[in-house]
């Protein structure tokens, strides 16, 4: 493991528990986050499989769950959304790859607060255990969707999963908030204070920028969700009326009065919209990194990319109302939210054109990480273009509760972010595990997944425009929806094939971990700091040496250079520093 063990100042811990379980090493913690997210994504994927099968065969008895009743369907929906958003989309890109590569890419020996880092992971783990526990308690998992709208989520007797299951759900979210806040604090301090000599902010790789901006969003957003969750727990268990108006549930008058369900929606979406960017920004970062590396060209418009990400983060806090056009908000507010939402299209377009500009007339190396990065751009465009449609209050009122929205957010937030993760996995696997992943299987996995995800989520747009409502358990009882059943069937078959293809990835991952060909220190001929150190990196990342940075992160094809790339630590070149 440690190629320069004699030189480095920090010897790694030797015991199994200190080395692999309660490790303070950001690299081990990153891998722990990665495997936690991998476990979570398979749980979430299995739930979606059950839902998709149920939608085309509502009366079929399925393994583990038996016949799916409407409330069971809603439980699956809730848990799928929550697990995927929090424990996959937030955990892997930031907690996993961010933890592993942010310190290395800025030339630091570890995170700023290693103990806090460990605590952050294990808190996330406890959060995951708590949410999984919701399946096994009296009444089962909650029904209120990942957005947890009251009064359904705030009244214990509102449904079978709304008892202990819902309490566990909120507790899990609160624990996750604490973990994310600890993580965000660590990421920010590390980026601001631990950069190697010469690593100015404008020489940071775009991945580091994306993790940095994501951490700012997390720091500002998760506190809001935490307080919203505490209010919800109080409404549920202490009889307060923050969110619950006077209401009759199951024939019984509740003691609550005067609360407003809209208050939750405002607080939740003030967190919820930045959360979308928390999920996607790291994907943008890694896509920029990979497109530049495999196009053998500097990233097109580095500064524009940085400012675009900052703008996306900034606007992300001002558009939460576009999730609430259906709530009866004032048309003036709706207009403001609509306008601000469409403003996000500008930095998003800047990013997209810069990605295309990076690839334009390049000698592209079509290896698996690159394929996934191109896939990310494709999904970002197809998922993103329906955003300006939904940003129009008039159109949104028609489309809001249909599959159009499901298709939109799955493409842009779900699958695009997942493609970012796949790209990151194929790209950094050699550095993380010291071996190469199988290229052929990687490509097969890519093509099935790309075509499969489009086959699942593109028809949802048509389904939505045709009036196909979302969140319904059975469509077979409604005459006009029955005509749309063939689309559902197509999507389910596509989902089964796509899910099956993910086993190619998992087998490739584990097989390569032990049997893959040994990786060199810099297999992709990339320029950033993780590629100057040994593979896998030693305990203190650079073997006791502090790297000194002289160049920008994307110096490819520099005229007069000996190779077609210049490492960040190489002697300065004329165009460096941006």
């Amino acid at each position: 493991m440690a190629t320069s063990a004699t030189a480095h100042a920090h010897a790694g811990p030797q015991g199994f528990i200190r080395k692999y379980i309660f490790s303070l090493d950001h690299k081990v913690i990153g891998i722990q986050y990665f495997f936690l997210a991998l476990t979570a994504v398979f749980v979430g994927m299995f739930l979606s499989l059950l839902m998709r099968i149920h939608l085309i065969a509502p009366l079929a008895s399925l393994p583990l769950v038996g016949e799916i009743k409407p409330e069971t369907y809603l439980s699956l929906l809730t848990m799928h959304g929550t697990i995927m958003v929090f424990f996959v989309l937030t955990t892997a890109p930031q907690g996993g790859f961010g933890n592993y590569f942010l310190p290395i890419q800025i030339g630091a020996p570890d995170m700023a607060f290693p103990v806090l880092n460990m605590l952050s992971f294990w808190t996330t783990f406890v959060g995951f255990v708590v949410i999984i526990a919701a399946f096994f308690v009296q009444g089962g998992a909650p029904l209120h969707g990942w957005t947890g709208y009251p009064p359904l989520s705030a009244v214990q007797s509102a449904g079978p999963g709304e008892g202990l299951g819902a309490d566990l759900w909120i507790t899990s979210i609160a624990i996750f908030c604490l973990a994310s806040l600890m993580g965000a604090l660590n990421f920010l301090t590390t980026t601001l204070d631990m950069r190697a000599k010469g690593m100015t902010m404008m020489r940071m790789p775009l991945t580091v920028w994306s993790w940095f901006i994501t951490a700012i969003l997390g720091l500002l957003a998760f506190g809001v969700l935490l307080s919203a969750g505490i209010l919800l727990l109080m409404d549920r268990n202490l009889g307060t009326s923050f969110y619950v108006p006077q209401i009759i549930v199951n024939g019984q008058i509740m003691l609550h009065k005067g609360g407003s369900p809209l208050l939750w929606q405002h607080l939740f979406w003030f967190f919820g919209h930045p959360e979308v960017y928390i999920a996607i920004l790291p994907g943008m970062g890694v896509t920029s990194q990979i497109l530049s590396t495999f196009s053998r060209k500097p990233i097109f418009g580095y500064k524009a990319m940085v400012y675009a990400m900052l703008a996306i983060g900034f606007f992300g806090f001002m558009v939460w109302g576009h999730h609430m056009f259906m709530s009866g908000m004032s048309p003036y507010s709706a207009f403001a939210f609509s306008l601000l939402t469409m403003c996000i299209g500008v930095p998003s377009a800047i990013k997209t054109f810069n990605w295309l500009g990076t690839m334009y007339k390049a000698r592209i190396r079509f290896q698996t990480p690159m394929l996934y990065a191109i896939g990310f751009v494709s999904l970002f465009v197809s998922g993103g273009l329906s955003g300006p449609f939904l940003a129009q209050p008039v159109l949104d009122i028609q489309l809001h509760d249909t599959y159009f929205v499901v298709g939109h957010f799955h493409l842009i937030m779900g699958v695009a972010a997942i493609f970012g993760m796949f790209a990151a996995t194929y790209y950094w696997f050699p550095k993380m595990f010291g071996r190469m992943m199988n290229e052929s299987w990687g490509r097969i996995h890519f093509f099935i997944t790309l075509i499969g995800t489009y086959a699942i989520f593109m028809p949802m747009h048509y389904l939505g425009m045709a009036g196909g409502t979302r969140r319904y358990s059975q469509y077979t009882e409604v005459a006009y929806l029955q005509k749309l059943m063939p689309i559902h069937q197509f999507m389910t078959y596509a989902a089964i094939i796509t899910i099956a293809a993910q086993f190619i990835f998992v087998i490739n991952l584990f097989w390569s971990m032990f049997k893959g060909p040994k990786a060199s220190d810099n297999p992709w001929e990339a320029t950033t700091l993780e590629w100057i150190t040994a593979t896998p990196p030693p305990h203190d990342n650079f073997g006791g040496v502090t790297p000194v940075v002289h160049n920008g992160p994307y110096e490819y094809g520099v005229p007069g250079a000996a190779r077609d790339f210049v490492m960040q630590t190489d002697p300065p070149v004329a165009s460096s520093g941006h």
Partner: protein
Amino acid sequence: MGRLIAALKLCVTQRLARLEVYMATYTPSTPMNQLGRGGSVPVPPNGGGDDGGFSDSGLPNYAARLRRARLGMICAIVTVSMVFVSLTSAYIVRRGLPTFDDSTRTYFRDWGSVQLPWVLLFINTAILLISSLTMEGARRQIARRAALAPVRSIPGVSLGDERGFPWLGVTAVLGFGFLIGQWMAWGELKARGFLVSTNPDSSFVYLLTAAHAVHLTGGIIALLWAGTTSLLHRPVEGRRIVVDVAAWYWHFMAVLWIYVFALLAFAR
């Protein structure tokens, strides 16, 4: 005075000697003159880029650790602020909502009837403000001790009585006093018939004071931690970092309490 200067000279000589030992055993691939802040690499004026807070020996240096801890504390303060900002917005929104009365079929305002135990709360406020002063005393005391630590480590050098006033202990006691005072205030509210679910403003009184108390408890734990490490004779520089950031946090807690109190008092 002459003795002190001689002691400092001795200290510098010892440190240089120690550095030479490191230089003899440490063989980095980059030349030594390129490491650390004094390196010869041109760094553009728009900031950034340091040595990662690790001295040439590879051991963390305390100045960098202190800077880093303060930065972390600023982030933590931002987070806690966001929690209270969102609770405030919930407070303001809920305050403006009417409640429907079944019997009269009309809307009415169910807000503003809670009677706060003013005297107790003012006493608590005074206790917390005094504790903020004692905390500042503790911070300055330990900063001074940390600065003099190299001198004190020289054999034969004494700086006189080292005990000093127990600022840290007094702060922790005052912190506990504040929490007990808040507990009594809740008891008083309960005695006046205002429970958590009685009406929306009593809910918020309990919520905001409890949220503040939970965060203050975190501060007290930090003080106890610093006190424990002092008993264990850990290096004073490390303890200084804990006390320093705890002091920042503590002052923030005092400001936050005044904010919460003002919100409950004026936005009725």
